[in-house]
């Protein structure tokens, strides 16, 4: 009874505080999240299903090969979605000082508290895993050409195998992140782990989101690419382990169907496909062994590390006083004398630098934007990503456009993050001290954003460009990136009249209409800029001329656009638009 109560308490806390904002309506948000999860998986299932319904005479050999692509997609998606859930939960995966404060004083054994916490985590993970994989499992039978009839037993095997392998892959994804977190906490100790925790979470978020975005493009011709002989990555890619597990369980259902004479369209391919599929059988068995071993290892590791970390209920981490290093003093001097000279600029600058890495919502937005940018870059550049370009005039436009695309993505993410309040209740600090002069504060926010968000991206891209394009071109291209990002940040914040990181979030009312247009415009501009840049790169003076001309022209345009608002000013509204009286802060005037 008590355990049940505790499990319920932890589950509700996940839903009400850790995953969903305590101010949000739990039922509404859960319905939206659950609905999104189900509808996305249902939509993908329908797409998968339709390709078979349009190829009703596809013979068993070709179907088996195509089915490998689907298995790879579903297994990877399940693994990534569950890993992302674990990353989203992150700090809530372990008991914290709040639990000690609330539950530690009650006459409940520590073991009962920790056990209930882990049961709650398991229930949440299992529920999400099942929820995500429910629709594709249900529609598994229809992901076959109508002419293939595996019989009742065959259908049951196909459905069950799909369900079990995707669930196992999801469990592996979730447990891997959980094991990593708990393992590092056990090795480093809570104090040291807390200092790297948010960076690690952000890196995982970027990596997993990028992988998820790139997944549809990499789930084709799996047998010929990922599973091809002499491919070193095959055994190192976890989704393939679970694909192997599935094929050993259910591969024979389709492959074992009787071959009738296929139509002329498939005649030659069917024989090759069957041979290729069957030649992979030993590999499937090896991959299955890897899947079972990996699942068992992460499970044991997670339990061991979590049990070790739960020996005592946690107490608040008290960090040692930080010494002000010479570098830190120099940095503060540079900010005060170069980057943000006025008080309000400094307020915006430092507050932005403090908020972006420390607030989980802001980190998540920036990590997602970076992931989108990286995915766009990989998709557009493809195999040219590591091809060294010797002739500047022949550099593929995609390589040059990649920088603008990534920058546009991270800057859009930064603008969105700036719209989210750091801590809405604490915004009264601003309302008590605000002097209505938004410009210097906003300028500080933009400069901090440029340094925190753009500079690391530009530095990373510079390394890549130095390898691919050579140092001279990389430096010139870096300069273009600096100018492009500085202009773009001005464009994104032109006519921005709310207080960044302070005012309540107001969702864009016309995102659906403006969003696609914005994406199209960014793509067009990135390639146009890349084309101009490629033409100018041949000669440095020409390049400088184009750059300087562009900067002067565009900055004049942006400034005029921004200033146009001054002549018809709207009231500076720091107040939130949320009608709920409990959330009103009355920050106006």
């Amino acid at each position, binding site marked *: 009874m008590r355990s049940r109560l505790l499990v319920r308490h932890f589950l509700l806390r996940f839903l009400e505080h850790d995953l969903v904002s305590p101010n949000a309506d739990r039922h509404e948000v859960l319905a939206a999240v659950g609905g999104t999860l189900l509808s996305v998986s249902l939509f993908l299932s329908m797409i998968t299903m339709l390709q078979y319904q349009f190829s009703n005479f596809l013979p068993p050999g070709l179907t088996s090969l195509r089915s490998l692509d689907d298995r790879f997609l579903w297994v990877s998606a399940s693994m990534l979605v569950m890993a992302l859930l674990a990353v989203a939960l992150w700090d809530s995966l372990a008991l914290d000082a709040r639990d000690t404060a609330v539950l530690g004083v009650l006459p409940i054994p520590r073991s009962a508290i920790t056990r209930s916490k882990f049961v709650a985590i398991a229930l949440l993970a299992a529920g999400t895993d099942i929820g995500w994989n429910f629709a594709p499992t249900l529609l598994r039978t229809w992901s076959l050409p109508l002419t293939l009839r595996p019989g009742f037993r065959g259908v049951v095997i196909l459905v069950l195998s799909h369900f079990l392998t995707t669930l196992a892959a999801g469990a592996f994804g979730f447990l891997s992140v959980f094991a990593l977190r708990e393992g590092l906490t056990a090795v480093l100790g809570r104090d040291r782990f807390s200092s790297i925790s948010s960076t690690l979470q952000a890196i995982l978020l970027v990596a997993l989101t990028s992988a998820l975005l790139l997944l549809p493009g990499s789930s084709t011709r799996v047998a010929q690419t990922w599973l091809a002989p002499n491919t070193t990555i095959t055994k190192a890619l976890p989704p393939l382990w679970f694909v192997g597990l599935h094929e050993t369980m259910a591969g024979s259902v389709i492959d074992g169907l009787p071959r009738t004479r296929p139509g002329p369209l498939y005649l030659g391919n069917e024989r090759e496909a069957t041979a290729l599929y069957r030649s992979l059988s030993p590999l499937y068995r090896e991959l299955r062994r890897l899947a079972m071993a990996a699942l068992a290892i992460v499970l044991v590791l997670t339990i061991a590390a979590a049990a070790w970390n739960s020996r005592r209920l946690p107490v608040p981490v008290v960090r040692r006083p930080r010494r002000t290093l010479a570098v830190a003093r120099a940095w503060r001097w540079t900010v005060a004398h170069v980057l943000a000279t006025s008080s309000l600029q400094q307020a915006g600058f430092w507050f932005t630098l403090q908020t972006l890495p420390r607030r989980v919502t802001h980190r998540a937005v920036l990590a997602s934007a970076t992931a989108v940018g990286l995915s766009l870059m990989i998709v557009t550049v493809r195999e040219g990503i590591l091809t060294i370009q010797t002739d500047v005039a022949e550099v593929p436009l995609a390589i040059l456009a990649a920088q603008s695309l990534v920058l546009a993505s991270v800057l859009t993410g930064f603008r969105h993050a700036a719209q989210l309040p750091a801590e809405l209740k604490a915004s009264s*600090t601003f309302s008590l001290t605000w002097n209505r002069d938004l410009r210097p504060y906003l300028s500080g926010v933009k400069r901090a954003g440029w340094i925190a968000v753009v500079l690391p991206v530009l530095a990373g891209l510079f390394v890549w460009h130095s390898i691919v394009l050579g140092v001279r071109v990389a430096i010139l291209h870096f300069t273009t990136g600096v100018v492009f990002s500085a202009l773009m940040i001005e464009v994104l914040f032109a006519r921005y009249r709310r207080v960044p990181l302070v005012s309540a979030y107001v969702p864009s009312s016309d995102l659906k209409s403006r969003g696609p247009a914005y994406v199209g415009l960014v793509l067009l501009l990135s390639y146009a800029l890349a084309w101009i840049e490629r033409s100018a790169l041949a000669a440095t003076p020409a390049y400088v001329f184009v750059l300087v001309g562009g900067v002067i022209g565009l900055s004049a345009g942006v400034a005029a656009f921004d200033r146009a608002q001054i002549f018809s000013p709207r009231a500076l509204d720091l107040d939130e638009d949320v009608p709920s009286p409990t959330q009103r802060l009355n920050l106006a005037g």
Partner: protein
Amino acid sequence: MLQAQHLVKRFFGITVVNDVSFEVRRGEVVGYLGPNGSGKSTTAKMLTGLLDASSGAVCLDGHDVSRDPVRFRQRLGYVPEEPILYTFQSAVEYLELVGRLRELPATHLAKKIGALLELFGLSHAANQDIGSFSKGMKQRVMLIAALLHDPDVLILDEPDSGLDVTTTLVLRQLIVTLARRGKAILYSSHVLELVEKACDRVLVIHQGKIVADGTIDALQHLVSGGSLEEVFSQLVLSDNPERTATDIADVVADHA
């Protein structure tokens, strides 16, 4: 100096503050007393401009503050009843933010923050996240934030809540000292002893209305002698506290 003129606040048709008028003069400490839910904090929020009054006005030196709220806030220091801070910042970072938003000179600000943190006994925790602070420590940060710009008017809404004995005594003395230096202070508290010792005048609010306004001597005279606690009991308490306490103990002891 600071005047509340016929302040009224209604929430969903329920009047929480009803026609409240008073003045806090330069160099004066005015105690603002009342039971929970009587309208003290609502009045304080209306005075600071954090909450719009349903009707009435707040004036500083005869000027309606709603006409130039920025100028008013430059002269105002406010400690809210609940210390809501940015928990991901350290005390120094928070105070720097407040100082910068108030456009205090950088070198002066750093010195002032360091000195005030030292004097309020927070220098050891200056670089720790506020999220790990106790309520008293947060309260001290709020006090420093309110004093940082040397305001002319101070509105202190239960500033002693959560403070330890030493800091409470320092606070009491600080209020008296600041008043001597010409600040106008409105001091709301549940610690009647502190109010009795620090305040020149006391306002008692009950169910949204001012039920008493005068010096402590005058109030004591009004209810035929006794301490401020007795005055307060006679003005606002409808139940007998001793009887209520006995009833509570009886319920606690009931094991059936």
